[in-house]
């Protein structure tokens, strides 16, 4: 029974967008992927939700500026396990064009381990959707092994 549910669960990913100080470019692309019927993320069962407590997959964009760091980490902790993180854009990995800026310290992946990375500045909506699909595989493994991505 448990196994069956674990197999079926990743067919219903609920997605939460977490803006860690991004320039809004990535966020617009995520909103495009979510809202335009053409890309239809509901096909793979996705639903964008407003509350972190409902989320399964977190899309993180932006370089994690000093100002929002604590808030982002707090919101991240509110997401129930098991969760999967997807870094959208180059910012979460390297800081992108904000690298070495006075307002950004270390990029997002120093604080939050990213399971999937979607490169681009900003990435195309198709790439974001592909990132979500890859995250489903990570989630499947996480469910069977009962591991967490951050304790």
């Amino acid at each position, binding site marked *: 029974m448990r196994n069956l*549910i*674990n197999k*079926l*669960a*990743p*067919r*219903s990913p*609920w997605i939460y967008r977490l803006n860690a100080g991004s320039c809004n470019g990535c966020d617009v692309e995520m909103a495009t992927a979510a809202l335009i*019927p053409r890309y*239809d993320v*509901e*096909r793979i*069962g996705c*639903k964008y*939700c*407003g*509350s972190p*407590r*409902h989320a*399964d997959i977190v899309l993180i964009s932006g370089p994690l500026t000093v100002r929002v760091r604590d808030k982002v980490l707090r919101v991240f902790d*509110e997401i*129930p*396990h*098991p969760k999967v993180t997807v870094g959208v854009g180059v910012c979460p990995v390297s800081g992108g064009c904000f690298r070495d800026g006075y307002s950004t310290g270390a990029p997002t992946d120093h604080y939050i381990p990213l399971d999937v990375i979607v490169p681009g500045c900003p990435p195309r909506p198709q790439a974001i959707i592909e990132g979500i699909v890859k995250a489903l595989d990570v989630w499947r493994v996480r*469910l069977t092994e009962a591991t967490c991505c951050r304790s």
Partner: protein
Amino acid sequence: MSNILEATFAILIFPGGAFALALGLFLKGMDRKVLARLQRRVGPPLIQPLLDVLKLTTKETLIPTTANELAFRLAPVLGLTGVLVTAAVMPVGGVWSGVSGLGDILVLLYLLPIPAMALMLAGSASSSPYGALGFSREMAIMFAYEMPLIASFLAVAVRVGGAGGSLFSLDAIMAYQFANGPLLLDPVMMPAALALLIFIPGTMGSGLFDIPEAEPEVIEGPLLEYSGPLLATFNLMSAVKLVVVLELAVALLWPNGLGGNVLVNLAWHVFKCLALLMVSVTCFRAATGRLRLDQGFAFFVKYTSPLALMSLGLAYILR
């Protein structure tokens, strides 16, 4: 003794319980699928609501430290129990006429607000400002939609009672329609039917009336702080609530079966619920945006209530 057995069966298996849960999840799936097709999308699979519920059972339950834990945990359970009992009272035309002594539309008037109450309890127990906002919105909109509901109940009761006064028993309402044709085709009852049709999206919070759980403003309102199995319970509650309000409209206005075969009648009943869902929820949701709270309130007071009251007046004069 047999009455108790019958009631248990009704609550756990046939019109309530397993049947209502399955029908509710199916209707929710159809709603999402057809909405997607209307927007020229592929849409989620038909079993998506079931998958959502199963997924939520694997998640962790988080409870805010400032929340009242008992009320927070109790609210979804109360809501689900309430709607399951309500579903058990609903008659299915030509298949099941309700447990004797249980079915009465006055009882339904008490049972129908339970899910809204559960949401209010959830919103206020969660100690989140958005939850409190959702709570107050839910309450305001409930005051607005109860009025046309009560008026159309009374209209049906007076119409069925005829010269002998009014009749509140669901059995009598069904028997009247089996003898004299569905009330839906009765010109006197048409305004009340329209009012009930608007009541359905109103109580489900879809389309124009997505006010208490409005995602862009109050982020799901009362459900904001819920996660895991408790949220799954709320999802099930909303699915069964959908069944209950659709079955209510069917029972009041169009309960007639298709001849004597039980299975045919059951399929016909499901079809009627589905047709009503498509008209009142899915197409309505696809075609409309959303109202502000005051506009939504005014909509029910200005347009929906007079429709139902008109039927009531006509039924009273013409009896």
